[in-house]
C-alpha cells in the first residue's frame, strides 16, 4: 500500500512539475518566432489528434462505435451551421445518447 502511495504522489508531483514548467518558461524563449509558432500550433496538433483518438480508438485498438461517430458527425454539422459551442457539444452528446437508447452502439 505504501508503494502505491509513493507511485500516486510521484505521479502527481511529476504531472504538476510538467505543467508548471511550461507556464514558467522565460518569455524571451518565446520571443523566437519559430518557438512562438510552435507553441501556437501545438494545441492544434494535439487537440486534433486527441479528438480523433478519443473518437476512433480504445486503448491500442481501433474501435468504431457508431453512436460515438454519429455524435462527432452531429458536432461537425453544428459547427458548419455556426452553432454556439455549447450547442455543438450538446448536439454531439444527445446524438450519441439517443442512438444508444435506441439500441445502436
Amino acid at each position, binding site marked *: 500500500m505504501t508503494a502505491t502511495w509513493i507511485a500516486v504522489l510521484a505521479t502527481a508531483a511529476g504531472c504538476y512539475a510538467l505543467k508548471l514548467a511550461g*507556464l514558467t518558461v522565460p518569455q524571451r524563449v518565446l520571443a523566437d518566432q519559430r518557438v512562438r509558432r510552435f507553441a501556437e500550433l501545438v494545441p492544434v496538433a494535439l487537440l486534433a489528434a486527441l479528438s480523433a483518438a478519443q473518437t476512433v480508438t480504445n486503448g491500442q485498438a481501433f474501435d468504431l462505435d457508431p453512436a460515438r461517430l454519429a455524435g462527432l458527425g452531429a458536432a461537425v454539422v453544428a459547427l458548419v451551421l455556426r452553432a454556439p459551442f455549447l450547442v455543438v457539444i450538446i448536439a454531439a452528446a444527445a446524438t450519441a445518447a439517443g442512438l444508444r437508447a435506441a439500441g445502436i452502439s
Partner: protein
Amino acid sequence: MPVDRPPRPVRDGIGLGLAVGVSGVAFGAAAVSSGLTVWQACALSVLAFTGASQFALASVIASGGSLLAGTAGAILLGSRNTLYGLRLAEVVRPRGLLRLPAALGVIDETTAITLAQPDPASARRAFSATFCCLYVTWNLATLGGALGAGRIGSPQAFGLDVVGPAAFLALIWPRLKNGRTERLVAAAGVALALATTSVLPVGVPVILAATAALAGALAAPAAHGSRRPHVAEASPARTAPAPDSTAPDDANPGEPV
C-alpha cells in the same frame, strides 16, 4: 434560466467543465477496481488533475505492472501539458505566486477553451471558469465513482464520451477554417497519432502529434502562413480558403488568441 446570463467565455467554460468533469466518475470507478483506495483515487484527481495520466497509472496498477514504469508512463503523458503551458503563459499571463495554482489547471480542456477566445481578457476568464468548474466537478465525480456511483449509469449512456472529442474539434475549428498551416498540422497530427496507435503505449501517439506542430513551425514560421510552406504539396486539405471566411487573416476580430 438566470436573468443575467454569464458572459460567453464563462458560460462555455462552465458547460465544458460540467460535461467533462462528470467523466471523473469513470476514473474513480476504474481506479478503485484497479486496486487503488478511494483516497488514492481522490489524491490523483486533486493533485495530478490530468485525466490521461491518472487513467494510465490506474491501468498499470490493475495489470499488476511495475509501479516505477507506471509512474514514469503517467508522467510522460503529462508532458503535453508542458507544451500547452508555453502558449498559455503568453495568453493568460499569470504573475508571481498566481502561477502555482494556475499551473494545476493547464490541461487539454482549459487550453482549448482559452485559446479559442477572441481577446486576452476573455481568455483569462475562460481559463478560470473552465479550470474551477472542471476541477470541482472532476474531483466530486472521482469521489462518487470511487464510492460506487458508477453503478447508477455509465457516462456513455448520456453520450458524455463524445463531449471531449466534440469540444476539442469545436474549439480548434476557427483556427482550422482560417489557417492553411493549421489545417495541415491538424491533419498530420491526426495521421501520426492514428498510424502509431497500435504500436505505441496508450497516450503516446497523441504526444507524437506535437512533431506535426514542430514541422509546421519550421516550414511556415510566419504567424498566418503567408509564406507557402513546401509541405503543402502533400496536403490532403482544401487549397482554397474556406468560403465562409468573413475577414482577411490580419483583420479578423474573432480570431482566436
